């Protein structure tokens, strides 16, 4: 059952990811990416990371992708304004990506991965568990990331602001 579920989700993920790349219209790309993120959230649920799945949906689908959509609409981008590459460079990029995939797989196979004893704990993805980690072992990075956020916020406001002449 879960194997089929995994396969279905995986195929959906790959198809939507490819659609992101190949859509002529940037608007469709954004929408396909949202689909892709939903399937990834499904994977998270399968992997017992329930809390993360929800956070993923809220942050990516809810915030980041809305931002993307908003920008695409604001700049009025569509299939007509889309710049085109020559066929040669398209083929070259496809081949490069394919080769890179082969090389990556080969290096993964060449790497000796440790055998896992499957855990019987299934609650590792719950809020309690992740929260405890976040506020004990990773407290300092957590706090520092808030500073990062603040600076990103200020930076983006500053960048997007219209310059006074």
């Amino acid at each position: 059952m879960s194997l089929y579920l995994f396969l279905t989700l995986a195929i959906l993920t790959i198809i939507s990811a490819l659609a992101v790349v190949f859509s002529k219209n940037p608007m469709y790309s954004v929408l396909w990416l949202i689909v892709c993120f939903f399937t990834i959230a499904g994977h998270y649920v399968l992997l017992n990371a329930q809390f993360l799945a929800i956070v993923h949906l809220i942050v990516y689908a809810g915030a980041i992708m809305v931002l993307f959509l908003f920008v695409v609409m604001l700049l009025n981008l569509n299939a007509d304004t889309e710049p085109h590459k020559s066929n040669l460079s398209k083929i070259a990029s496809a081949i490069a990506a394919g080769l890179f995939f082969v090389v990556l797989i080969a290096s993964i196979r060449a790497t000796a991965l440790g055998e896992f004893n499957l855990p019987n704990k299934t609650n590792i993805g719950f809020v309690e568990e992740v929260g405890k980690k976040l506020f004990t072992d990773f407290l300092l990075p957590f706090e520092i990331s808030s500073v990062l956020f603040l600076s990103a916020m200020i930076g983006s406001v500053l960048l997007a602001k219209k310059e006074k002449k």
Partner: protein
Amino acid sequence: MENTLQAVPQNWYLVLSTLLFCIGIMGVLFRRNAIIILMCIELMLNSVNLLLVSFSAYSGNSDGQVFVFFIMVVAAAEVAVGLALMMSIYRNAASTDINVLNKLKW
């Protein structure tokens, strides 16, 4: 649902995220629209997230999930700044084509 870990070998997740990563790379090479390239970068980041979560699940340790949190933080910040840059570039060049942005050279 609980037996996903038994049913699906971990290698499959490896392959899946590698594939997602390579699609992201292909997107970066394939497209010239800077916003799409930014999206492809998000895709690559997510493939790494997936990998981290899978390792976390198969080893029964939630450290990996905490890392995913931080990656999300960075990604969100990056998108915010990146899109703000896009806006100001568009305002100046009236385009998001990366080939227009080739002034930074010798």
